[in-house]
């Protein structure tokens, strides 16, 4: 990195610095560690990055994309605000969508964008009115039951100028099918649709939630990828969600390695059925958590881009630059926000968003200050929006791409996290790959270990959480969390009941039977290039099957239940 003369001069300066420290601070070494436990020094110098070849850092828009995936980033297109929302009935959520759009929520190049999440009932594949849905309809997201809900959400919107994240978790294929059918009825062909279905069937490997049988989870992911690669070139199929790993306690290297291991496993399955990785990898993207350790989280983003580029080029021979460019949505870490002194959270997510910008995020979600109390209230949602707007317009950060490049600490820590990530990927490989590790419970064991250590540090006060274990106050600022509409469940259940009454029941039953037939072939014989589960799901939606009915068939065939 540096020539001989520079290296010599730096060596002398470092020796002098060490002498100054011994005199001024006798007996102290000021050693510290990052939140995840990487040992760090009080200062970094050219010596720490001497062995990093300059082409490892390169330029923005150049492999391995350490400095960002575009030659010029925010100057051309700033990161977008991609705060998720969703609650109660679709029309209630539509009110919040309209409010946020009015307050400046906007997508890339002026497109309309929404990041929508569905409720616990929809995500588990139960219709309002079913016993398992009782008490959870409209909680954690929108109640989605039938195709009619699409109109309640999207009426009067130009869907060909709209980008939608439609997060129905394990049931995202059904959400996508409803969106496709709704759009086609508005005269918009699916080829013109833009958005994201999270496709994160794999998350049961990292967190406790009901999930498909592991092998089925991956098969379902491949079905969605296969369909969209063929029919929907503008649709982002798969969200590689490190946020699950991070929120469950994972370190940056775990967040990167555990989730890229998912991508490797799915890519291999897609290769087996003849798909070309350069055709589908460009439509994978990341969701990464931004915690409080400022530089550790910035360097995590830079390391992630390197690992993604290298894995796809070296392992899968990808030549399309878009297969090597990690597009990253950063979500400020919900687990760092506190119920005590909730206004403190505004400071936390502001700093986290700042870190995301310095790390080159392509999209950012700032959580609500009431995160530990409820989903965001209207005020919290607007303040989260304003935070990103202030960073964008008032800090002048958008004028220079990757301003931290060249920092001795930043480049050293980026390299360190990259190395750790590759070590973990190798370890996962030696243990048989992502699926084997999931089935063994290895990811959960690793994450529980790290999470427990984190909690121990909080319990003993070694890790300070302001307002929780230090600077606690008896004076409580009253913050009223979001209030759900209590009539949601009753109305949603009645809608499903009436929808079923109006339809041609025989036609619906026939398509569900066909869905079951196709699902069984895929379950027993694996994904096939000429058989599309999505086609049968779409047909079922056209014939007025509800989300719960379609989900019921898929869950029954593929096996679904408490986390494996």
């Amino acid at each position, binding site marked *: 990195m540096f020539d001989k003369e520079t290296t010599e001069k730096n060596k002398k300066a470092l020796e002098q610095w060490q002498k100054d420290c011994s005199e001024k601070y006798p007996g102290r070494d000021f050693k510290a560690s990052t939140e995840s436990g990487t040992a760090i020094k009080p200062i970094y110098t050219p010596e720490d990055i001497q062995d990093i070849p300059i082409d490892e850092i390169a330029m923005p828009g150049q492999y391995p994309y350490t400095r960002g995936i575009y030659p010029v980033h925010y100057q051309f297109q700033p990161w977008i605000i991609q705060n998720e929302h969703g609650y109660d009935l679709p029309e209630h959520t539509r009110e919040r969508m309209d409010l946020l759009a009015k307050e400046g929520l906007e997508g890339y190049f002026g497109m309309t964008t929404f990041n929508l999440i569905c409720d616990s009932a929809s995500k588990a594949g139960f219709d309002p009115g079913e016993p*398992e849905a009782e008490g959870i309809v409209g909680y954690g997201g929108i109640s989605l039951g039938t195709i009619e809900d699409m109109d309640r959400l999207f009426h009067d919107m130009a869907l060909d100028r709209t980008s939608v994240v439609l997060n129905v978790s394990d049931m995202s294929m059904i959400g996508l099918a409803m969106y496709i059918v709704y759009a086609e009825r508005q005269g918009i062909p699916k080829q013109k649709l833009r958005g994201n279905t999270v496709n994160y069937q794999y998350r049961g490997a990292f967190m406790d939630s009901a999930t498909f049988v592991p092998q089925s989870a991956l098969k379902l992911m491949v079905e969605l990828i296969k369909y969209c690669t063929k029919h929907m070139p503008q649709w982002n199929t798969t969200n590689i969600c490190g946020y699950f790993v991070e929120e469950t306690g994972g370190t940056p290297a775990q967040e990167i390695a555990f989730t890229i291991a998912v991508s490797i496993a799915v890519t291999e399955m897609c290769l087996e059925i003849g798909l070309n990785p350069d055709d589908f990898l460009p439509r994978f993207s990341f969701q990464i958590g931004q915690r409080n350790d400022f530089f550790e989280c910035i360097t995590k983003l830079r390391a992630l881009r390197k690992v993604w580029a290298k894995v796809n080029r070296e392992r899968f021979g990808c030549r399309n630059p878009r297969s090597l460019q990690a597009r990253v949505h950063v979500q400020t870490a919900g687990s760092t926000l506190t119920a005590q002194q909730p206004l403190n959270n505004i400071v936390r997510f502001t700093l986290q968003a700042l870190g995301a910008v310095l790390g080159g995020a392509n999209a950012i979600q700032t959580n609500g200050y009431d995160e530990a109390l409820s989903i965001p209230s209207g005020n919290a949602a607007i303040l989260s929006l304003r935070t990103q707007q202030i960073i964008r317009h008032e800090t002048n950060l958008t004028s220079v791409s990757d301003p931290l490049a060249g920092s001795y600490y930043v480049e050293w820590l980026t390299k360190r996290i990259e190395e750790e990530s590759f070590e973990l990927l190798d370890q996962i490989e030696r243990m048989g790959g992502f699926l084997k590790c999931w089935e063994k419970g290895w990811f959960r064991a690793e994450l529980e270990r790290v999470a427990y250590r984190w909690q121990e540090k909080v319990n003993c006060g070694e890790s300070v959480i302001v307002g929780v274990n230090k600077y606690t106050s008896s004076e409580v600022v009253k913050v009223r969390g979001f209030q759900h509409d209590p009539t949601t469940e009753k109305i949603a259940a009645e809608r499903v009941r009436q929808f079923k009454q109006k339809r041609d029941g025989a036609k619906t039953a026939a398509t569900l039977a066909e869905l079951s037939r196709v699902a069984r072939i895929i379950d027993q014989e694996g994904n096939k290039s000429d058989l599309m589960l999505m086609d049968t799901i779409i047909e079922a939606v056209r014939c007025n099957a509800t989300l719960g009915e379609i989900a019921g068939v898929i869950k029954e065939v593929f096996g679904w239940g408490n986390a494996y």
Partner: protein
Amino acid sequence: MEVIYTKYLRPEDIIASAMEEDVDVIGISFYTTSPRVVIEKVMTLVNENNMEKTLVTVGGIIPEDDIPKLIEAGAGQAFGPGSLPEDIIKYIQAEVKTRKHP
């Protein structure tokens, strides 16, 4: 203190596990959903199955408005975010002692 970690889809699953394992305490954590409906159902099942001595306690994101209703239903203390494990342990130990030897 022996802790058995399990998962559930419906309140009936919780009661079934609790009876099978013959527990003194049922602790349920909530995150995205309102505890009220689940707890009301759990307490109904607890009473129907003569499990009145079993302590039902909750933790996680508990909306403040729900707390009086949980107490009314017969649940024990709610432990929100930031609660210390040692406080939860002390509470459980004291409660179980009282319930076993009233």
